[in-house]
């Protein structure tokens, strides 16, 4: 007897856009049909039940309870462990990870530190004028994409929330003007009305030039250009910004990863702030991982700080550049690592990730990845939004509850982390 079940309004957890309109048809614990998925999402669902991890200790197959016990032992015996990742687990998993960090006197950092963390640091300096995605869809008459390429990183973003979306006051593409700022003509830039190509690493200069103009100051440049953009063009852009009724800027790693790091975002935030003296203007970090926003949110309500937290003194301390994963690993300051739902061996600078080979490393992940290759302990896990429930926060901090629609043999991240915590707490 076949038993086909339809699930509607499923949330895809791949990227920070968290599309919640996925439709899935399930038969015999297999996905039969998918609707409303993007190219990446489709692959994610199709591959969900493949390449699954199993409990392993030092390269030998083990059982679930043993890997949990071993993980607790490693963290307990460590003097300065690192708990890292978090952006692809649920808020429930993240909360338990913060508690575990507290119990084990650990450093805890999320992939935010190599993503939009610098933007959060900038927010701590100037604040940020933002809005939920629906607000931008409904109102924004001028949309800027700065160092952001959602067509490839958040494929359904333009359709659901921005360029092509149907909004309450702005009904379609023709009612919006789009400008893309980038160092290369990305597929997103190709969708824009205007593409502004900057010299690499000159975002700060261009942002400050715009800021000077909108604050009524003069621009001077011997070459008659700033950041590779003609002064006349900068002036035209400044006028467009000033005349927007409800402008918006989606910014990506093009701001946070280039030379000036958080100062780029500082300049963007200051510009957007100042623009609110004309019309309204808001900005949105294009958060990459599905629940990276959640990692900052949950850490903040528990510790007061968004990432880069250290518990060696039994209370939380915060210092990006010191308690951030790349620095802790590169400086060889930590003596054990617990990687939760992340793949630092693929995504962190090689010399930082390589240090994981030298210290006891635990990986909690549903799938094999490059970091599981160098882990001492591997804890399998259910897949959030597919075989596990939980909470995720979209790039604009809108929370969504995940339902599960397939069966799994492994407990979810939250439970694994909580069990390890209990072993340490009750030891």
């Amino acid at each position: 007897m076949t038993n086909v079940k339809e699930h509607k309004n499923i949330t895809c957890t791949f990227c920070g856009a968290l599309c919640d309109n996925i439709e899935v048809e399930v038969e015999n614990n297999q996905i039969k049909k998918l609707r409303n998925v993007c190219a990446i999402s489709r692959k994610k669902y199709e591959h969900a039940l493949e390449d699954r991890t199993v409990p392993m200790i030092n390269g030998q197959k083990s059982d679930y309870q043993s890997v949990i016990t071993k993980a607790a032992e490693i963290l307990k015996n460590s003097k300065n462990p690192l708990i890292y990742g978090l952006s692809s687990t649920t808020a429930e998993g993240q909360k338990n990870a913060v508690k575990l960090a507290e119990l084990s006197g650990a450093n805890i950092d999320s992939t935010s530190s190599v993503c939009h963390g610098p933007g959060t640091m900038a927010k701590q300096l100037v604040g940020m004028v933002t809005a939920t995605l629906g607000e931008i869809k409904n109102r924004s008459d001028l949309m800027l994409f700065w160092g952001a390429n959602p067509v490839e990183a958040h494929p359904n973003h333009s359709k659901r929330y921005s360029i092509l979306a149907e909004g309450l006051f702005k009904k379609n593409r023709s009612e919006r003007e789009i400008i893309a700022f980038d160092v290369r003509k990305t597929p997103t830039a190709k969708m824009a009305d205007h593409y502004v190509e900057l010299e690499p690493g000159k975002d700060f200069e261009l942002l400050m030039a715009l800021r000077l103009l909108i604050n009524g100051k003069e621009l001077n440049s011997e070459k008659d250009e700033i950041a590779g953009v003609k002064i006349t063009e900068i002036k035209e852009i400044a006028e467009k910004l000033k005349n927007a009724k409800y402008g918006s800027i989606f910014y990506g790693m093009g701001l946070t990863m280039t030379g000036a790091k958080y100062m780029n975002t500082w300049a963007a935030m200051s510009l957007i702030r100042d623009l609110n003296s004309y019309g309204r203007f808001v900005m949105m970090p294009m958060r990459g991982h599905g629940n990276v926003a959640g990692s900052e949110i949950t850490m903040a309500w528990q510790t007061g700080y968004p990432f880069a937290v250290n518990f060696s003194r039994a209370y939380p301390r915060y210092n990006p550049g010191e308690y951030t994963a790349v620095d802790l690993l590169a400086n060889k300051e930590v003596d054990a690592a617990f990687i939760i739902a992340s793949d630092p061996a693929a995504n962190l600078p090689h010399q930082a990730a390589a240090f994981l080979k030298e210290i006891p490393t635990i990986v909690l992940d549903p799938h094999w990845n490059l970091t599981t290759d160098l882990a001492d302990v591997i804890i399998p896990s259910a897949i959030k939004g597919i075989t596990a429930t939980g909470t995720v926060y979209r790039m604009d901090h809108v929370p969504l509850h995940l339902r599960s629609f397939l069966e799994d043999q492994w407990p979810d991240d939250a439970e694994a982390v909580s069990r390890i915590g209990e072993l340490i707490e009750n030891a």
Partner: protein
Amino acid sequence: MLKLKNALIYDPKNNKAGVKEDIWIENEKIVAEPSERKIKELKEKDILEEIDLENKIVMAGGVDIHSHIAGPKVNSGRVLRPEDHRRDNVPRKGKLRSGVGSTVPSSYVTGYRYSLMGYTTVMEAAGPPMKAKHIHEEFNDLPFIDKGFLVLSGNNYFVLKFISENNFTALKNYLAWLIDVTGAFALKVVNPGGVEAWKEGKRMRGIHNKGTSFNLSPSEILLALAKANDELGIPHAIHVHTNDLGTAGNFKTTNETLQLLKDYRVHVTHIQFSSYGKTENDKVKFITATDQVAAEINRQPKLTVDIGQLVFGEATTMTADGILEYNLHKLSGNKWVNTDVEMETGSGIVPMNYKKKNLVNDIQWATGMELFLKIEDPWKVFLTTDHPNAGPFTAYPWIIKLLMDSNYRNDYISGMHKNFDDYTDLSNLTREYDLSEIAVISRSGPAKALGLENKGHLGVGADADITVYDNLEKRDIAEVFAKPKYVFKSGRMIVKDGELITELQSGKTLMTKPDYDPQIAEDIREEFQKYYSISIDNYGVTDNYYKKVEVVPCNFKG
């Protein structure tokens, strides 16, 4: 069973002021004194615990009617201000989680500090419906206290639409649905119409002008919401943050609002920020207008207010009133967060430092104090700092001292700006609150206004949320109220000798469930699916977010 004996009971609801009596507690509730036979039996079985409270002041646990303690805006304030936390670290102790404090403490520390101060119920002041899950997630990490949240509804698309269409039935159904699916306690109305105007890039003044794409005046919105709220029987009044809040001369708008709504239940929150006069030809501009506002409050039988008393020092302003925070940013130059929430509301955050040498801050401080002293009936006025807007809730004991001790108050005023008396008349006010009045403004009054029949008093059937203070003889009033001797929550001791017992305990989430026709969700579906960015089927808060719930009945009858 627990017996608190020889307590000096201050229980204004039950007309007890310093009456020496015993309190009996069983199963989280205050119960009648058992029969002698039962007492004998309890003693024989050794299950009667007795605590002698000879010479101690006993009140119901504190109830805060308006405080920003959880949710997206509060949390954004935490992230915004690492400098707020760094010098206020709370290490892990026993099973008590660590955290940080200062004006926007972490969730655990918020629970600790309310408990340490003898407060056991707190109402989160403003929640955007779309992010309600976040509020409930934080509630589950906010220990000890009972809490609920007020759901923002004064600039909501469907609210404005139904009012503009004169569809009152749909409005009522929608509001009840909104409270139900978000797990809210009551309705919050912030700068009605004015936040939508801010999102449209417009400015509104007063309550009579129409100004947004909905073509509604604030007064039309206020009237419809007050009427709907009364008809739904929600235990609490509409909880109003007035239009023009924070601006010089706004007392006129405030009094117009109070008069407009005189036939309905209304609670006006942090009214200190809404009671300013305006001095022309004077660069200070601000002057207190407490005579006018207090007179209107004294005249109206149904009205309640809380003060939002200013406290000198660090504060973090945060409100759904987006335009207000923009103005504060322009005024102070301080960092500024704004978050517009689609279809529902706005919000903003700006850190502030209120200074005694700043005359405007002095006037704001005096405005709050004058209102406390000029509103005659303490059942109409409640103690708040609009935490963390006008100051942190941890300043309540200091405010109590200012209210109870006019000598201390006058000494304090002597340190104010030299022109203080030109703009205020606080120096002329000699009233002092007594302990019963303090009990009213800090627990009995707010509990009554919220419609929490089991809270704010010590009668039989009340929740066993009880605070025990040292008596005031030869003690500093602020010290006494800052460090209760014992605090009991749901019948269990959580604070002893000014320290938390090192076990975590979860409080309840307070909700209401007004009746509605579920068809409303279908009626709004099409527009919701188009103009929200999430599906209506993913909008509501699901049961997994609720740990311990108490549904307060909607039995108000007009």
